[in-house]
């Protein structure tokens, strides 16, 4: 990492991240991005701006096991789904992350709308990651209002605001707009990460690649 100088003291780097709560590669990629930020020596100069990307807007509201969902909704064979999930679980385990193959899956629109509420409180990124932690650890109550209120409450988001969102369609337009914006910017893979408004990373990469991108973007914003 390039040594910071006095002239850089006011410079900040924005990292825009588009993700869905239910997206395995977002779960893994965000963990790696966060690790890269913490190791960069620039954590206090980096602002993560979370945006939603709804991957399955037509998914049903009923909670079903992930393997069943992949077979029924996405046409993925049971064998392939199991193999993919086992591979993802191995990758997650290597990074100390829980990853339940039989985790719950349902429509994520409520969760994504709550990410927008969280962002209004400066906790969108943290709220997204808290919901992911619940889902990927296999908590089948992850989608329940009580769970979403508890997770938000732990981040300082008022329960009445969360209930208001869940009982309305608030932020639905924002979820659609975020998705459209990512596609407009060339997101051909989710998660989609843009550093300094200039460098885009479609999909998840390793911690080292995120670290290199942070360094490159930091040099650009100081250039």
């Amino acid at each position, binding site marked *: 990492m390039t040594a910071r100088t006095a002239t850089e003291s006011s410079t900040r780097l*924005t990292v*825009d991240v588009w993700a*869905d709560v239910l*997206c*395995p*590669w*977002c779960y*893994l990629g965000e963990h790696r991005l966060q690790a890269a930020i913490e190791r960069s020596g620039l954590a206090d100069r*980096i*602002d*993560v*701006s*979370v*945006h939603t*990307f709804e*991957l*399955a807007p037509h998914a049903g509201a009923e909670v079903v096991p992930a393997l069943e969902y992949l077979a029924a909704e*996405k*046409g*993925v*064979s*049971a*064998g*392939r789904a*199991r*193999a*993919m999930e*086992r*591979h*993802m679980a191995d990758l997650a385990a290597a990074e100390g992350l829980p990853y339940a193959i039989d985790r719950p899956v349902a429509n994520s629109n409520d969760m994504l709308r709550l990410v927008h509420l*969280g*962002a*209004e*409180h*400066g*906790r969108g*990124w943290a709220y997204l990651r808290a919901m992911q932690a619940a889902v990927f650890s296999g908590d089948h109550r992850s989608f329940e209002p009580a769970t979403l209120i508890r997770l938000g409450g732990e981040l300082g988001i008022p329960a009445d605001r969360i209930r208001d969102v869940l009982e309305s369609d608030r932020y639905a337009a924002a979820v659609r707009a975020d*998705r459209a*914006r*990512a*596609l*407009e*910017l*060339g997101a*051909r*893979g*989710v*998660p989609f990460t*843009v550093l300094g*408004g*200039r*460098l*885009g*990373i*479609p*999909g*998840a*990469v*390793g911690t080292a690649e995120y670290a290199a*991108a942070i360094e490159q973007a930091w040099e650009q914003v100081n250039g």
Partner: protein
Amino acid sequence: MADRTAATDPPPHLIAAEAEGYCDPDTGICVLPASTGADETDPDAQAAPATTER
């Protein structure tokens, strides 16, 4: 750490580094690199959507 700012205006330069994996924005299907061997235990691979490598 701020949470929400205006996203980039002009399209960003996409980094050429190969993604380890991603979820397809159009289909919502999450794919793995073909080199993972994840298909080896799949008895139904012929009927499944292609797993691609970028």
